[in-house]
């Protein structure tokens, strides 16, 4: 049980890191294209800034959003696994992807169609974030699998 909780927290942190860094990097790619002097120092300091700030200063902490979305999705996956014969790693991967899909689709509905996560404004960005959720869920499923399968 304790290991599962730990794995859940690690999963949330990995997914949050992927979400935050995508927002930062996609922003820096655009700025670089505009001729702004983006170098390695700027990249690393910006990612560090965003990890701290998106979890501490933003309207909604990214880590809380991811944790909430994944907690709901993983509980649903766990229940579904009782009846659906599918490997856990795939079930949780699907759940993780669904959690991020819900975040990127539902948040704009609550805020006049505004994408508050800048990295989620483009279709490519949305797909990346869903993939981050899939990877996070897969990681969680794999690490549960070793004990529970």
């Amino acid at each position, binding site marked *: 049980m304790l290991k599962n909780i730990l794995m859940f927290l690690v999963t949330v942190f990995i997914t949050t890191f992927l979400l935050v860094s995508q927002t930062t990097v996609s922003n820096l790619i655009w*700025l670089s294209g505009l001729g702004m002097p983006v170098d390695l120092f700027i990249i690393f300091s910006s990612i560090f800034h965003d990890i701290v700030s998106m979890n501490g200063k933003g309207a909604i902490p990214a880590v809380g959003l991811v944790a909430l979305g994944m907690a709901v999705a993983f509980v649903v996956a766990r229940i579904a696994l009782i009846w659906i014969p599918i490997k856990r790693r795939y079930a949780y991967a699907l759940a993780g992807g669904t959690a991020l899909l819900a975040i990127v689709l539902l948040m704009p509905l609550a805020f*006049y169609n505004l994408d508050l996560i800048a990295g989620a404004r483009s279709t490519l960005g949305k797909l990346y974030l869903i993939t981050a959720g899939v990877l996070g869920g897969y990681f969680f499923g794999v690490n549960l699998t070793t004990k529970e399968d």
Partner: protein
Amino acid sequence: MNFMKKYLILFGLTFSAIIFSQHHEAEYDLETIAEGLDHPWGTVFLSEDEILVTELSGALRVIKSGKLLSQPVSGVPNVLFAGQGGLSDVALHPNFKKNKLVYLSFSESDDEQKSLNTLRVIRGRLENNSLSNIETIFKATPLRKTAAHYGARLLFISDGTLLITSGDGFNYRERAQYLDNHFGKILRVNDDGSIPDDNPYVTTEGALPEIWSYGHRNLQGISMNSDGSLIFAHEHGPMGGDELNIIEPKNNYGWPAITYGIDYSGALISPFKEKLGMEQPQKYWVPSIAPSGMTFYDGDLFPHWKASLFISALVPGDVRRLTLDGKNVVSEEILFNKLGRIRNIISAPDGSLIIATDGKNGKLIRVTPKK
């Protein structure tokens, strides 16, 4: 002893602060001239005793001799009242007394793609509490899915052309840096919507000819000084980074490549605050004050306020009086901070100031010297 001394100093400072804050309250009278307005937004004087007010929900109201007429002006087009959108600003043609032309800005849904919307500016003839002969002066492109950041302020400048502020649409901030669209721009058109020949990008390939300046976010205040030589505009920053700029044609004001604010998510929008070729603000605010309207005061009722810029602010809800030395802001004073969120401020012909408070039960409040 030291303990006592500290407390006496603290008490003294607190007492001075209270006296100082009340000192300003004593300088003027506040008189509510209309209330029950549904999100008042734009305000203009038709004559000494007649005021036009837009309600964001879509009505154009008239206040005559201090009384709000029960019937709104008829003939106003339907607007998209959602998010930050709705019936926004109102301006009079410089020759209004003869031609009765009134200009309105508002957000509206697209006729064909209902999920999309845009900013539109129209003009119509105002007679007998009715707007007729409506013509479209400007329509922003491309369409947007978001209901935010329209800008939508209107200002006739001294050469008789009309400036329109057009916000970045929130989701489309990067487009403020490109000249092929209306996001994050100030636009200049003739009174009939045609393009002035001397606009800065008229001959630039791929650029929209209406563009006057670019690199803006959400401009909700624009005003000019008494001789029309300086045009001031303020814009909302994201989390911090509200700006006051002096607008000159062709200039790039930097958004979102340079900014003093960060995103609502906490993320950096840009790690850069300056760049060659991008203008620095005359003043910026961190944290944000949410500047919502502006007037350059040139009246006689408050001689010590002459040539000041007054900026209404939604957060925490006050008015900022900025004193200027030429183009530079030299001081800032906070006024009227007990009225709640303030949506707009204008100068009246008699030299008083008119403040519009925000919200469902918005008020118009006249500020005059203490009797």
